[in-house]
């Protein structure tokens, strides 16, 4: 690794996630593990959203739909069909990817606010569909048969395993985000973000590139969904498609710096840290989401590039090492 400096943009985030994954084991604390799980989940989701929001410039307000949909499909196969967690993760990612592909063909022609509105509509429509879909338990949802945990050595073992899989998903999301960022495909996405018409004139096949960006941003959220429902032991429509979680993801990506690899990771850390403080504080615990809204407003008004974006602007050498 002679050129390690050149790869700092990927080494730093990977080290951060590795440290986070080891922290609960080293401190041997279940409560640390719960905190770390939440942060890793946020990193995986925010890094995935960043492919669409940060690189391609398309604001998805309903990105949580892929988490809910993939999670539902995965849990169905895990619970009702007796598939292993690994096969369920695969089918969850795949089904979210396919959903994104089909949606992309339909709504990625819309730009700006129209696309953002359509994504909210999609989230609500899928929620309504699941709510009426008897195979997935309709409004009651599905409860995990606890025999499933036995296959993985009991509940404690299964939850510990879920934690390490989540760390793996967070790593995968970061690596995917990095590979997209430094690839020719990613350059096409950035061109679309900057000026879609000019990008097409230059030869970027925007409809295809946008669709694949959407698909890539949907796969890992689907896997995160099934893992979370597996750990949680149940799923119901309201909990699977929370619109406010979509907005929290936007805050994380914007806070850390959209369009950078490190940004969403920092944003996820900072946001979850702050949220942890707010929900336990007497004063803020009921207005926690309003604080998130205020933060989003401040970022959009004053530092639209987010923390990492701001640093990149201020210190030119950082542009080369923080993609």
């Amino acid at each position, binding site marked *: 690794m002679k050129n390690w400096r050149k790869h700092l943009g990927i080494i730093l985030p990977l080290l951060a996630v590795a440290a986070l994954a080891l922290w609960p084991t080293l401190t041997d604390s279940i409560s640390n593990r719960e905190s770390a799980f939440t942060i890793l989940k946020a990193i995986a989701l925010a890094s995935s959203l960043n492919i669409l929001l940060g690189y391609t410039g398309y604001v998805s307000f309903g990105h949580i739909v892929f988490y809910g949909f993939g999670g539902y499909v995965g849990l169905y196969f895990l619970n009702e069909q007796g598939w292993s967690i690994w096969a369920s993760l695969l089918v969850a990612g795949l089904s979210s990817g396919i959903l994104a592909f089909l949606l992309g063909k339909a709504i990625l022609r819309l730009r700006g606010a129209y696309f953002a509105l359509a994504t909210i509509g999609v989230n609500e429509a899928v929620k309504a569909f699941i709510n009426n879909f008897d195979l997935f338990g309709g409004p009651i949802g599905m409860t995990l048969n606890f025999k499933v945990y036995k296959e993985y050595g009991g509940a404690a073992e299964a939850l510990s395993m879920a934690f390490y899989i989540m760390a793996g998903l967070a790593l995968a999301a970061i690596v995917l985000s990095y590979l997209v960022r430094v690839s020719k495909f990613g350059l*096409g996405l950035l061109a679309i973000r900057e000026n879609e018409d*000019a*990008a*097409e*004139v230059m*030869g*970027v096949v925007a409809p295809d590139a946008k669709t694949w960006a959407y698909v890539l941003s949907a796969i890992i959220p689907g896997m995160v969904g099934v893992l979370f429902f597996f750990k949680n032991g149940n799923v119901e429509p309201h909990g699977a498609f929370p619109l406010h979680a979509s907005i929290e993801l936007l805050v994380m990506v914007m806070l850390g710096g959209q369009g950078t690899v490190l940004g969403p990771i920092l944003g996820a850390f900072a946001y979850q840290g702050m949220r942890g403080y707010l929900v336990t504080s007497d004063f803020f615990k009921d207005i926690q989401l309003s604080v998130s809204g205020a933060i989003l407003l401040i970022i959009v008004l004053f530092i639209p590039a987010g923390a990492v974006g701001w640093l990149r602007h201020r210190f030119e050498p950082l*542009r080369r090492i923080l993609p």
Partner: protein
Amino acid sequence: MTPLLSVTGVTKRFGGLQALTDVTFDLPEGQIMGLIGPNGAGKTTLFNCINGVYAPEFGSVHFHGEDVTGSKTYNMAKRGLARTHQIVQPLEELTVRENVIAGACFGREGHSLGSAYDIAEEVLEFVRLDAKADELAASLNVAQKKRLEMARALAARPYLLLLDEVLAGLNPSEIAGMVEIVKKIRDRGITIIMIEHVMKAVMNVSDRMIVLDYGQQIAEGTPEEIANNPQVIEAYLGDPELAKKLMGED
């Protein structure tokens, strides 16, 4: 030999406005064609019909003998057509180099990032932007942004280059520099159509010219023929004395 580009009877309407009426011309390889006409004559619309931004209502566009009427812009780019915009459209938050690399990556030859990097180096030197390579495109001034558009189009290694007012807004020494660049591009074997208002410059570099007025093609010929065409002088240049002045013959 089939001409590189054949435009046949191209007609385009916007609501009640007849933007282009029955425009027809052939463009042989290796030439520079000047496209002139007053504001609103339909010059940029003609570019848009050629490179696929608009599909013409009637008529056809053939490129390398193939019918490409109504093709998407990105398909035209892959076929070897590149253009610059009258209102510059740099990818502002990317560096100058990244802009040009994107041109090479997604243009006709579809280079990988590595080989596109080398092409960008060469093209940026050619348009004399190499000193600005690592700055954000947003930080360039207008003249530099026009050269960036040119560099991005050239990096695509096109067969045909459409230049939309690359001289507008430049000072005389910048114009001279740009004209040199245009001639050098032609010498590399790239065919060019240029829309221009700076009459002396466009007459100087064009092999042939077309004049549009209210979407009608009112004249076609060598720069001399155009300059002496009474209809052009009447409809476009206003009065013959002014025409002579613009030609620099006074």
